[in-house]
């Protein structure tokens, strides 16, 4: 049973990783050409008459993850590997992992995929907070 669970997790992770990698290939920007890239600003956020920080949401390429209680170290390592994540920092008292997405997969996409895993208690963007309060 445990073996199949692990196997299915591995397969899902593997398949999704491939689709994310394909997306990565399409975003090679060429000089002075119309481009599609994660780095390029998504113009749909722009409206006439704006200024200041318009979309102030989360840090691109980063996540906060909490693994389910008792998740083994090797499973965590495997998830990091499968989803191409790298640990920036662990807040050990709360068991919260601050991680970096090493490829061009979007934060939303990774969260959507991690949500399906039993080993993940939750994952969320690394939100921006402002001091203009």
């Amino acid at each position, binding site marked *: 049973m445990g073996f199949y669970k692990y196997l299915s997790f591995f397969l899902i992770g593997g398949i999704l990783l491939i689709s994310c990698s394909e997306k990565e290939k399409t975003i090679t920007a060429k000089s002075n050409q119309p481009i599609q890239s994660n780095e390029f600003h998504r113009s749909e956020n722009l409206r006439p*008459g704006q200024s200041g920080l318009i979309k102030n949401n989360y*840090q691109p390429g980063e996540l906060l993850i909490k693994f389910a209680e008792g998740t083994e170290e090797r499973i965590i390592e495997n998830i990091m590997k499968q989803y191409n994540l790298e640990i920036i920092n662990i807040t050990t008292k*709360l068991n919260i992992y601050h991680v970096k997405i090493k490829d061009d997969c979007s934060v939303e996409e990774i969260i959507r995929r991690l949500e399906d895993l039993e080993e993940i208690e939750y994952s969320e963007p690394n939100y*921006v907070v402002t001091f203009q*309060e």
Partner: protein
Amino acid sequence: VKRRPEVRQKYNFAFVVTVALCTFIIIPFSRAGQWNKGSISKADLMNSNNATKKIGYVPGEILIKFKPMISKTKIASAHSVLGTREIKRIGPLKLSRLKLPAGISVEDALAQYEMNPDVEYAEPNYIIHFEKTPNDPDFDELWGLHNTGQTVDLITGTPDADIDAPEAWDITTGSENVIIAVLDSGVANMHPDQINNRWINLTELSGVTGVDDDGNGYIDDIYGWDFWGNDSNPEDYNSHGTHVAGTIAAQGDNGSDITGVNWDASIMPVRIGGVVGLMSYAVEGIVYAVENGADIINASYGGSNFSQSAYNAIKYANDNDVLFVAAAGNSSNDNDIDPHYPSSYNLPNVIAVAATDQDDALESFSNYGATTVDVAAPGDNIYSTIPEFSYGPAVNSYTEDFDPFPPGWGFSGANNTWGFVSGTGFGGTNCLEDSPGADYLNNSVEIAQYLTSFSSVKENRYTLTSRIKADIEYGWDFLYPFGTDGNNIFIWENRTGTTNGAFIVDSFDFTAFAEVFPSFFYFGFALVTDPLITRDGVYIDDLVLTREPISISGYDLDYFDGTSMATPHVAGIAGLVKAQNPNYSNSQIRDAILNTVDKIPSLSGKLVTGGRVNAFKAVTYLAPPKNIKLIPGDESITVSWSANNEAALTGYKILYGTDSSLGTKINIRNVTSFTIKGLSNGTKYYFALRTIGDFPFPGPGVTEGNNTPVVTAVAGTPMVNTGGGGGGGGCFISTIFID
């Protein structure tokens, strides 16, 4: 925060004259012979000190001094005439504080003792409110602490629309033992008015540089930690955190600048951002503050996103008895409908704070919420400490004159017509142009972006300069120079055309962000147009992006507005309450603040408490005893309760009777159970308790807390409705007296 551009008055010398030093004047004892029965000469007393504003005396008490060499027997016999009882003896003065029996007035008692030849003098036990005023020269700017209706930064307020700080300072001015963490943009704690109130990690201070001497995971964290820069220097290159920290505890009564709500405290800077902050740093920062001994966390930051990680971190603070005071937000929003975090987390240690102005009205910008925002505090026109900055030397990060057409630019977006041209823009040289050779298109959202990102070097300021020539439809079409990290976008400025359609020849010089983007950013230009009217477009040339290191060149003070500024008033009061009651838990501090607000009609229905915080009432709060149990016995009922731990606590008052008017009152000492005897078996008795405290300057309404809810039991009936257990049967008859 909203910064005010007005000229500030750093030192208002005219005011220095009017600030009375805190003079601790003891009112001279009146001689027995000079005492006139029934007339308390307030005028005489008022003349003795113009800082002594409120004068009265404690009912049921007098002070008395007998002549030398009077025997104890004679003194006892003098007391027996009226049945007075000595409750305190001030040895060096040979002065006794006497409690009078019920029904004997202060005037009558004084008259009685006056007739006794052995008495040197007798007088009422005067209540003296000194309302300690610190000698800080800019104290009069701090309307939030003490509002006399004075004009602050051209705005005049309403007297007493403040937190009653001077009154609270009669009780406590704070303590360096209270640690208040400021989760913010850092704190410039070398500010001369703050340097003495820094939290100091003594283990690291006396340890080895480069070694984590205290093993807390952070090397050399002597004065806090910078999670943003991942170093041991939580310096403030924003001003926000310094201003917040100054309101909590700029050093008081030191003859310079201002004072915080606390004259003394230990401020622990925890830097979670620069221009903006990140949730990951807030989470780590909260845990750091908790692990390193903070009693209170000030969170003058926020956003609209619920973060489970932040929730868990604040819950961790609660579980470790750390109070979390959070700004309600500045978007005139009802947080009951649209939550604002962290102030809206439904956790027992969170106090959410709205902002009031100099007239005790809710600020127009302040968020509110009948179930989600607890209290209001002064948050407009708040004068506090800031650092001054200097910049440079400048480093050119990117220069481009478009000669020849450069690689590395991308053009994109709806109806994109960006391109490079030669000769048409700025006399003969190449430039970047929207719509070469034609007008731009309607309904366009088009972007020209340099496709190489720049690393955000922290503690640096970025400036973009360029020449620009533009003809854009006035008021409807816009050019945006922007920075982006692909998710967030920062628009330096929106620029439209002229009404007459002429070209504007101008230049950009935008210094708008130092660290809006925590890791990296791109820059570019966007042209956004509406469905009608097109014009020639935009020419851009001679682009320069520079970076300048920011350094702190001095220290100053300034006026800021915001719930960010209201929050440290509350965190500051929490600090005073903790200083007064070191054994208080975070929930007791929270209760003391929330249960003692000054109710303000206009705040009713907008805040949980419907009021603005009051420091004096919070530090003199005496919580009603909890967990009251009644254990009936034969012709008796034993009352027991949980111990209170106010520092000022001297005992309790039990009020009871055969109906809810609770006709009998008994004062008892600091015990947690008491048996009332002589009751009638089969009769139902009603009980309530209140806490009694002895503050330095006692007075009616200050020395006794509020009643508990009424509870009942029938005497002679064993074990009815008591919840069982409890310390039954304690006999403390010798400690009681009838009030």
